[in-house]
């Protein structure tokens, strides 16, 4: 740690410059970056998407070459295990083969795709060991088992025989970590190891890495754009911006006294849990560099827009010889809530707890099994297809992945105009004007109208999705993880936009998210879901400040806080694996019963499975 600053750094990156040869000429991935990592130290590299974080780390592994990149300048000094400093930028791939995996381990961003789908976990774990350490198969398996135990995977013996797809995301990421740790590398590079994961799993992984680092003394280079994670992990922080290092320093210094404007903006954009404490209504975030921001609370109204009662959605699981339904996935189970006009209800919970299914059920994009949905006097459940089409004029949805939810082959103007065309609301120049207005609404220049989704950044894409949802002047927008895939700064902009629209147009939102800090920022009411049920429902302030249900409490604990002074330790966490939501045919779960702990604050009293 920092108490041995004199220790010889394990890796020194000096004036790194990486170029990519593309059809439109060379593209600079990293312009000029220098920093070093000492043994036993965690260096966090932060910066927005595309700022060159991954490219820097891949350069150190000399893996950029395989992606078409070229290290065109700088040195990458690495202190090899058997002494001797080597410039990795100059060595040949044969030597690199011995260093990779052996002396430098790497954990990749996407646990879902980083593992080879057709080999067992055991095989992939032992491969590196057998190459570098020359272990026999049996020895290697022994060691693999030990590694799996170290990363605390339940039932490690069985895991060795399993294929990656049979593991959950968290487990897979742990396997990737075990793999990177296998040969006890001196430097571990972790490229956004938790970005794709849930809060709870993220918390576990972070704790795990921290412990491993402490136990083995490995140096860690940790790449992320999540400031809360940085606060949790880092000893030292390097801030990157557009291919350059803009700031470097110990973690406290970066958080408390940021120097560079970009760092300041970054920090400002991070919603922090607890920031809203004491405020009754949500209000937009204060963003740096935005002039004339109007920060006012959004109270909403008290008249009910949407009333959902006893909503139940199940997905059939077919099986057997005749492909009959043998079981059901109880995705949404007896869920009831209301949303007021101009207000936001947030649904939070772990992956797979049924948030999306609930949102889609309301729009009847999936057919609910039973329940009542009343949207401003319209009984949605009773509508036929054409009635439903009409009802969707009043409720719209924004989807999680801004890229996936836009058609890559259509110009933006057409995508935004599509709902208007569908309902024959406007045509010709009127249509064009309305679309242009929508672009204005979401703060996109009109010149973007002829672009394609791939020509937009993630935030801009999500704005298009919002514009499209707004086109029909809906009363209710269901935002299913609308900001989860975005960079912090972009996320803040989109959140502000959504709140601004709410204030101006009196929109109601059903906001689905697993990010507690974001939820705290935007919602009037919060519902916590677990295994298809709402386990706790109430005003945002009450649920956050006074969580009653044990699951809510655990969830709150897991959220990392963007403050290096308030790190969580591993023992704070106790998560049980989620039980299966699949029940055989005929299983009839008991109805949910709630206790009102405070006015408007309900907690589930019946069994939730937690």
């Amino acid at each position, binding site marked *: 740690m920092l108490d041995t600053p004199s220790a010889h750094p394990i890796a020194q990156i000096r004036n790194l410059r990486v170029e990519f040869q593309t059809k439109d000429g060379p593209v600079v991935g990293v312009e000029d970056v220098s920093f070093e990592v000492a043994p036993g130290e965690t260096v966090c590299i932060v910066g927005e998407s595309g700022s060159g974080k991954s490219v820097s780390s891949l350069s150190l*592994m000399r*893996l950029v070459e*395989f992606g078409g990149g070229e290290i065109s300048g700088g040195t990458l000094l690495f202190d090899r295990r058997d002494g001797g400093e080597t410039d990795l930028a100059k060595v040949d*791939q044969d030597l*690199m*083969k*011995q*260093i*990779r*995996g*052996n002396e430098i*381990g*790497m954990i*990749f961003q*996407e646990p879902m*795709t*980083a*593992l*080879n*789908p*057709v*080999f067992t976990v055991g095989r992939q774990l032992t*491969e*590196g060991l057998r*190459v*570098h350490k020359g272990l026999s198969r049996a020895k290697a398996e022994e060691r693999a088992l030990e590694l799996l135990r170290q990363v605390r995977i339940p039932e490690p013996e069985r895991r060795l025989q399993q*294929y990656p*797809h*049979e593991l959950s995301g968290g487990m897979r990421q742990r396997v*990737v970590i075990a*793999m*990177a740790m296998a040969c006890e590398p001196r430097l571990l590079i972790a490229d956004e190891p938790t970005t794709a994961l849930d809060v709870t799993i993220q918390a576990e992984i972070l704790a795990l890495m921290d412990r491993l680092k402490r136990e083995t003394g490995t140096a860690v280079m940790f790449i992320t754009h999540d400031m809360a994670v940085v606060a949790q992990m880092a000893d030292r922080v390097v801030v990157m911006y557009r291919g350059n290092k803009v700031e470097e320093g110990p973690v406290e210094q970066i958080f408390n006294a940021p120097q560079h404007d970009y760092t300041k903006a970054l920090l400002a954009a991070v919603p922090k849990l607890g920031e809203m404490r004491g405020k009754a209504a949500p209000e937009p975030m204060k963003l740096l560099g935005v002039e004339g921001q109007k920060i006012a609370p959004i109270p909403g109204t008290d008249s009910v827009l949407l009333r959902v009662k006893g909503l139940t959605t199940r997905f059939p699981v*077919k*099986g*057997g*010889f*005749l*492909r009959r339904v043998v079981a059901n996935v109880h995705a949404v189970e007896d869920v009831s809530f209301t949303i007021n006009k101009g207000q936001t209800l947030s649904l939070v919970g772990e992956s797979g707890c049924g948030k999306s299914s609930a949102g889609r059920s309301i729009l009847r994009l999936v057919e609910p099994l039973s329940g009542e949905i009343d949207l401003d006097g319209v009984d949605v459940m009773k509508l036929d297809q054409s009635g439903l089409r009409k009802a969707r004029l009043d409720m719209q949805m924004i989807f999680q992945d801004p890229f996936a939810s836009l058609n890559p082959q259509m110009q933006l103007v057409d995508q935004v105009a599509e709902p208007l065309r569908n309902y024959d609301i406007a045509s010709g120049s009127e249509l064009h004007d309305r679309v242009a207005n929508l672009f204005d609404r979401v703060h996109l220049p009109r010149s973007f109208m002829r672009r394609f989704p791939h020509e937009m950044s993630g935030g801009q894409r999500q704005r298009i999705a919002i514009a499209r949802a707004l086109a029909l002047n809906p009363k209710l927008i269901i935002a299913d993880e609308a900001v989860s895939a975005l960079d912090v700064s972009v996320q803040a902009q989109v959140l502000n936009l959504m709140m601004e629209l709410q204030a101006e147009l009196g929109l109601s939102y059903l906001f689905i998210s697993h990010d507690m800090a974001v939820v705290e920022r935007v919602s009037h009411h919060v519902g916590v879901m677990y295994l298809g049920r709402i386990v706790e429902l109430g005003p945002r302030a009450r649920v956050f400040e006074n969580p009653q249900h044990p699951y809510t409490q655990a969830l709150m604990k897991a959220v990392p806080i963007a403050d290096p002074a308030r790190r969580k330790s591993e023992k704070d966490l106790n998560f049980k694996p989620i039980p299966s939501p699949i029940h055989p045919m005929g299983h009839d779960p008991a109805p949910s019963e709630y206790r009102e702990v405070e006015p408007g604050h309900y907690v589930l009293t019946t069994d939730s499975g937690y």
Partner: protein
Amino acid sequence: MLTFTIRRLVLAVPTLLFISLVIFLLLELAPGDPMAQVPLTVPPEVKEKMREALGLGQPMHIRFWKWIVQFFWIEPQVLIDHYFGTSFSEGDLRVISWQTRSPVMDIVVQRMPQTLWVVGTAYVVAIIIALPIGIYSAYRQYSWFDQMGTFVSMVGFSVPPFFSGVLVIVIFSVNLGWFPSIYDTTHVVNDWDSFVVQLNQMVMPVMVLALQITAQLSRFMRASMLDNLNQDYVRTARAKGLSEYVVVMVHVLRNSMIPVVTVIALGIPAIFGGAIITEQVFKVNGIGQLLIGAIQANDLPMVQTLTFIFAVLIVLFNLIADVLYGILDPRIRYD
């Protein structure tokens, strides 16, 4: 997986029955007459008598029913009799070819060896050549080798075998005298020398057929490799310090082979179906030649039986390909 397989097999029965009906109706509708090859010197009255002797006088549905019974009930009995020495099928009329007045299945069985030898070898040779070409072309995309491979395989794809076959005959049989131009189907392989003779006579048809199959398979292999080479797990494998050989030939190849293997499986019915034009050009007289001959002679029972067997194989190998996919790709589980 087992239930999946069984369910598909059970479902295949009505499908196949329907296919057999469609084939039958198609053949009935088709113009043509089994007497077409009887010389003009035979007068029409006699031809009419001959037609009746073939059973053509009966109404269509009766003939279809007869065929069904013969094919699904009597032929299996014959098979059992053949293997176990029983005599279930004694006295029953089997599916009889109009051209040869002999059981269709006997001829099919007789034709199988040469078809398998030639077309099967061509398929194997093509696979052996195509896979490395595809792999290397993908690994060095847009390299000289890749461009060359594309060029050759496209030319191979575009030359019809009635031309390439004759071309190799003229070059290698007529001018160089290396290989026989006519395949000897009676040749028996029982020692090294006779094996060499067999190889000799197989070289040209195998060459011509393999060229076409290689052209398609190597394209496919290349596409599949390219799809996988950019996957994240490849980077992971490299980060582990594995050698390029292991990365490409173990990690990438194993994934790329999944679709290719199923494609190969889907191509197997074509082996049994023979290669009509190539067999004709080299006088291999396998199943393909049998089919085209039967079509030309309007030998309906033969055509019906052969196409139906072919349909069975297609349906079967469709299923096998699906099952293989499930076996090769652990992510896929059929319930």
